[in-house]
């Protein structure tokens, strides 16, 4: 069964993008700036079957994060179709739903509801989340009293314990101290071994080679290679050494 399917997907952005004031629109109309568009993704097609774990590799600005945003349903493609079956949990920017004035507990419940869980599920999962995070008594304190590492640990615990059907990971494999990092990696492998689908954007690392069996190589928005991870990484690294 195909859980993720992209067909001829294009995604363009305005080069000027982002926040706009009325002044910027007037400048556009009066022709002072050229609202140039660029392709973040260009004619990308691929599909991922149930239980596959796929890595997305490529240089900065190759369109990796845009690809994940499309799959997570955060942004529609400019043209083409994106189909996703099942609930995707994204470990994108960890803790984006967190608020510093709320306690750890309140943040867990809020995040669970943001990720689409019902009250019953959220309360059932609460204990396993707290246990995994190893935050103990800090869970009753406001988030602003946490260290950066503690906050990331909490965010990671929420995302992985919410039992996603598709786990989307964006360069967040390394969280907290070495001991906790090992625990995170172990948890991700556990999720994979349960037959869940994983889509992972990360720097090339030994962990990535072990975790994924397939890789997609993006370059300037185009899918240049799709195949077994060993071969794709070899070709990718070959290109890098030639450039150097």
């Amino acid at each position, binding site marked *: 069964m195909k859980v993720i399917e992209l067909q001829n997907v294009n995604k363009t*952005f*305005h080069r000027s*993008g*982002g*926040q*706009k*004031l*009325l002044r910027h*629109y007037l400048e556009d109309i009066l022709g002072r700036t050229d609202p140039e568009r660029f392709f973040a993704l260009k004619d990308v097609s691929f599909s991922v079957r149930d239980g596959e774990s796929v890595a997305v590799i490529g240089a900065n600005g190759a369109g990796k994060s845009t690809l994940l*945003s499309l799959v*997570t*349903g*955060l*942004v*529609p493609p400019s043209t083409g179709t994106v189909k*996703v079956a099942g*609930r995707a949990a*994204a470990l*994108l*920017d960890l803790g*984006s*739903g967190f*608020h510093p*004035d*709320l306690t750890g507990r*309140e943040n867990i*419940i*809020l995040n669970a*509801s*943001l*990720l*689409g*869980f*019902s*009250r019953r599920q*959220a309360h059932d999962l609460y204990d396993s989340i707290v246990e995994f995070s190893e935050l103990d008594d800090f869970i009753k304190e406001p988030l602003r009293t946490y260290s950066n590492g503690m906050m990331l640990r909490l965010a990671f615990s929420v995302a992985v314990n919410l039992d996603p059907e598709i786990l989307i990971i964006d360069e967040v494999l390394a969280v907290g101290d070495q001991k906790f990092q090992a625990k995170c990696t172990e948890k991700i492998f556990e999720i994979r071994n349960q037959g869940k689908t994983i889509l992972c954007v990360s720097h090339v690392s030994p962990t990535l080679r072990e975790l994924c069996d397939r890789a997609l190589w993006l370059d300037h928005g185009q899918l240049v290679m799709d195949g077994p991870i060993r071969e794709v990484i070899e070709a990718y690294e070959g290109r890098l050494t030639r450039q150097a």
Partner: protein
Amino acid sequence: MWKGDYLFLLQNLIVKDFKIRYRNMSLGVFWSLLNPLVMMTALTFVFTAVFPNNQIENFPIFVLCGLVPFNFFTVAWQNGTISVANNAGLIKRVPVPREIVPIATVLSTCVHLGIQIALLLALVVVFGRGVNWNWLWLPVVWGLEILFVCGITLMTSALDVYIRDVRYVVESACTLLFWMVPVFYAIHSVPQSYANLYQFNPLAALILALRTILIDGESPTSTLLLKLTFSSTLIFALGLFVFHRLKRQFFDYL
């Protein structure tokens, strides 16, 4: 796509806003009461001592019937308008239904509103206008008002993502509105031709209905209720439509 529990999420977002607002105030709920009381006292002083206006009895209650809806409207509208742009982190990272962000902001203001309505009702009783059966209309008129605020906020919050100046337009509109709705003057002081138009403004209609119910002890007229229902539903539908059309490109502008 997001297939979660809407009510659970909405409740959590409302509780979050409420907790954040009150956790940082030492006197908590007291501040919700202070602002309308101060304004009530100031306006009562101006319009009974500086410009004596003998036509209006019970001026403090009369003006509070205007201030409570006006405060709710401006606070909810202004906070709601900036809510989508201010929650960019959330909107760009989590595929929650976008409508829920401005609606939760408006509804969290309702907690604050509940406290002010309690103050208003308490003062009505203290000033000798008792409880009457027409109070049963209160949830209806307030409900329509909340629907209206949700609608207009959906519209301006979506526009604010595209053009950040919208929030300043809303701010000025609120200042203007203080004069354009009958907060401190009676509707019968307004020339008849304008007065009919006033009822199409849901905020003005609510203020008029509150005075009819709480001060005169009568039920609001059916024309007024019809106009209020008509404008509120229309604005809400329009708000949903506009928001739906604009939300697809939010990501690119945040």
